[in-house]
């Protein structure tokens, strides 16, 4: 692999991402404590430390395409234990959002889940759990996933077929629209 300096565009992107995340990747001295404590690292292609390494070397595109940023559960263990005070969790979030913006969706399932979740909030102001599961299942082509829980949940009053709606859900919809207009930073 030939290491070349990042192009101006990528450098600017990295600076913007650092500013959005509120942290500085150059503080990291690659000790590995983040990867060590990450409960989801076992499933990642690039555990947290390596994602930071990619950014340090200016390989922003690669970091955005990593599956890791979708597997990250936002548990914040990494940021809490980092001896240099690097906010890795915030960076992961920022990378996720940027990947969405650029359409680099390595993990369709997690992206689909988030989309389904927010769709319900946008329409009704509250989470529409039944709708969420339905949309998620269809989009990820697993129509019968978790079907065994449907009836038991309903019997226990934990899920309703119809969504809960708030009175001023138009206010919530407006928030979504405005954010979209602003381009969401």
């Amino acid at each position, binding site marked *: 692999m030939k290491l070349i300096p990042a192009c101006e565009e990528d450098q600017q992107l990295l600076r913007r991402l650092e500013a959005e995340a509120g942290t500085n990747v150059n*503080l990291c*001295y*690659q*000790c*590995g*404590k*983040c*990867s*060590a*404590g*990450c409960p989801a*690292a*076992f499933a990642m292609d690039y*555990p947290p*430390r*390596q994602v930071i390494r990619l950014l340090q070397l200016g390989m922003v595109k690669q970091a955005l395409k990593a599956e890791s940023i979708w597997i990250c559960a936002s548990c914040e*263990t990494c940021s809490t*234990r*980092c*001896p*240099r*005070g690097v906010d890795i969790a915030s960076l992961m979030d920022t990378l996720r959002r940027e990947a969405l913006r650029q359409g680099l969706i390595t993990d369709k399932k997690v992206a689909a889940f988030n989309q389904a979740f927010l769709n319900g909030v946008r329409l009704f102001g509250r989470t529409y759990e039944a709708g969420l599961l339905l949309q998620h299942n269809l989009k990820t082509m697993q129509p019968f996933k978790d079907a065994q829980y449907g009836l038991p949940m309903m019997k226990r009053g934990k899920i309703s077929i119809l969504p809960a709606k708030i009175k001023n859900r138009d206010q919530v919809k407006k928030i979504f629209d405005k954010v979209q207009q602003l381009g969401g930073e």
Partner: protein
Amino acid sequence: MVAVAQHPNIELVTYAEVVKVSGYIGNFTVTIKKKAKYVDWNLCTGCGTCWEKCPSKKIKDEFELGMGMRTSIHKLFPQAVPGKPIIDAATCTKLTKGKCGICEKVCPTQAIRYDDKDQYVDEEVGAIVMATGYDLFPWEEAYGEYGYGKYPDVITSLHFERLVSSQGPTGGKIQRPSDGKVPDSVAFIKCVGSRDDTKGKSYCSRACCMYTAKHAYQVKDKLPDSEAYVFYMDVRTAGKNYEEFYQRSLNAGAKYIRGRVSKIYPRGDKLVLKTEDTLLGMPMEVEVDMVVLATAMVPAQGAQELAKIIGFSTDKDGFFQEAHPKLQPVETFTAGVYVAGACQGPKDIPDTVAQASAAAVKVCGLFSKDRLATEPMITEVDISKCSGCGFCVPICPYHALSLVEIKDRGHHGPFTRQVVEVNSSLCQGCGACLPACRTTALSLRGFTNEQLVAEVDALCL
């Protein structure tokens, strides 16, 4: 140390503290508090009968870091010089309740003195060398991911030193503090509290890489069938033969894994370490029997207070501040006060000895002269302008200013008045007194008001 005690020109005062220092270079007056020992060391021979017979046997020994027990009357540590005991007043039955008195009965030279008191002695000295050493960072308060000190088998390197020492609580046998079993695997974690901007100290403690390599080697040497893991970020072997020493540990079979440990937790009677081998790029879990933490070196307890008493500065981490990081490593900003060893910054034995030798020679150099040449760029008093208000006197951090009486002549004849005098040995030329002087009688040689104005003019006009 024994050589020091026996040298005719050296007076060794132990079990004592410096409580007050006044004066200046060449002329310090030091007040020493000699703590009550309750044993007359002039009579005591160090035979040891008293501590053998002492009935208060279950006191946690501070030198053994709580891993062994001692008696109330005890020698502070095996190699103490002089090798004579003191009584720990807080635990002695005779001193607290008036009962017992066995040591007095058995002492062959009748050296026990229950009525001993603290003594205060004044000494006149020409120079002071600080060598107060270091303590370890209190990791139990900061590192919850390592258990906050709950797990008895997670210890510091200093504990490990006691375990390996033939005079230690286990006679040199490496065993788990919890159950005494010989460990099948020992993990060493470096940089606990060092190089940590968030919970610990930002600096590197310098000696840990080498002593951990030593400890890992000792494990493989004493327990060849056990595993020794060292979890590191770097291996700093900057010293003569240091790299070869580290290689020897590797050759002996110590496994060095590059990665910081994120969490230690117990599973059964073992300890699980969550780490990442950054060289392989894989998160891992390792199960071990014992964990040794190489904790950061911090200044000795009470060092900052001592610096205030003596009157010199400390740095941002509490270590004694050297006058120049490269060119004056053993002097402080206070003339006549020198530093040597870990009190100035984390270091190992060769560097400490070198610094100590340097400090000693600096003192010799100082004493070889009858007169002292001091910095010329110090405060000057124009006594024709000085009103003797004394406003500047308490401002000087080096106590260099004092009011003196002079004889003067006025309209009505001779009279005496007070003016300020600058002690050229103490004044460091800091200039703090200048703004206090209302009559501009004080000026700093080399930086007078006229000189400064001329500088500004040259730049701006």
